[in-house]
């Protein structure tokens, strides 16, 4: 199973990025392999319009099973994510990646 996080860094101790469309990084944790990969999304700052669907497209291609984020995706992004067939959990915007993962495992995050 692969879990995607919206983050401000690329390891367990990084802070989560509460934003979905304009998140700095997407961190993907492979639960079975216990392995991290990441995508640098910082160039999204150059996009004046449509950051949400653009980042959602990235997730569509990464094909994670779960997305853990902060504020949750907006309307256009949600339309894309529906097609990506993944579970979304929100409310982890103020946590570290590690704390967000623990909160997810313990069932403490809200479904988005």
């Amino acid at each position, binding site marked *: 199973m692969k879990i995607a996080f919206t983050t401000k860094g690329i390891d367990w101790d990084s802070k989560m990025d509460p934003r979905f469309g304009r998140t700095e990084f997407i961190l993907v944790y492979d639960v079975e392999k216990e392995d991290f990969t990441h995508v640098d999304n910082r160039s999204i700052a150059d*996009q*004046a*319009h*449509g*950051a949400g*669907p*653009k980042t959602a*497209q990235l997730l*569509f291609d990464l094909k994670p099973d779960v997305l853990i984020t902060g504020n949750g995706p907006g309307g*256009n992004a949600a*339309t*894309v994510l529906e*097609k990506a067939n993944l579970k979304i959990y929100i409310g982890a915007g103020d946590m570290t990646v590690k704390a967000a993962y623990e909160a997810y495992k313990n069932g403490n995050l809200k479904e988005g």
Partner: protein
Amino acid sequence: MTTSIVCLIERLKMKIAIASGKGGTGKTTVATNLAKYLSENRKVVLVDLDVEEPNSGLFLNGSLMNQKEMFKKIPNWESENCTLCGKCQSVCNFNAIMKLGENIMVFPELCHSCYACSELCPTQSLPMIPMKMGMLTEYKVEQLGFVGSKLDIGQEQAVPLIAQTLDYVDEMYSDDYLKLYDAPPGTSCPVIEATKDADFIFLVTEPTPFGLHDMKLAVETMRELKKPMAVIINRYGIGDAEVEAYCKVEGIDIIANFPNQRYIAELYSQGKLIYPHVPEFKAELLKAADYCKHLVKEN
């Protein structure tokens, strides 16, 4: 005096946009009162271009002349001949079209109707189709022509509606008309669209630090567009004298100071024009009209 000013303005074939940096400074108050007053003696059309929240019409009770649904064109994906090459998404500056697996997805609210994806599609799989974005209404208020457009709820792009509203006005109203545009606040794309066609800009501000801060942004924007401009201070008497100091340094004329009065706010809240009821307000309105006389002389 009034008559001579109006006679001179009568010769003025001009488009004046009434803009501001900060919202809520009194653009609509200035636009509706100036338009109605000038229309007593000459041809005037007022155009409400603040299509996201138009409100000029609240102060002008006239008879409905025309109502028109407004459309923009958006691409519509036809899958039959599409090779999923992805050209459409790579040429879109607005992320309004996306390839998702075996599908092409269009986000109508993000689309700026630039036609790039449609024109550059190698298999012509993206014909443009009309989508309703808003409504234009046209009124006659005694002698005053009034045109205003309103964006539909959920629509994000004000620019195409502003552009089409201006096209309508240019088509329906000859150059005999003085054209006054009530512009949106701020300095973003809708403001550029509403002012780029104007010959002169009136910037309405309030004499407060916040008003000055946003007015400076508006001044910089209008300078970038190479537009001549003058400032109108509304709610004069509150705040400080910094707006006047700034205008002096920058060489920008202040053409009227509309007073801050509770009674004016009461009239406004009742949807009434101010100048028929408040002589101090009308005196300042005459100054704004007088300024137009100077513009004619300079031309």
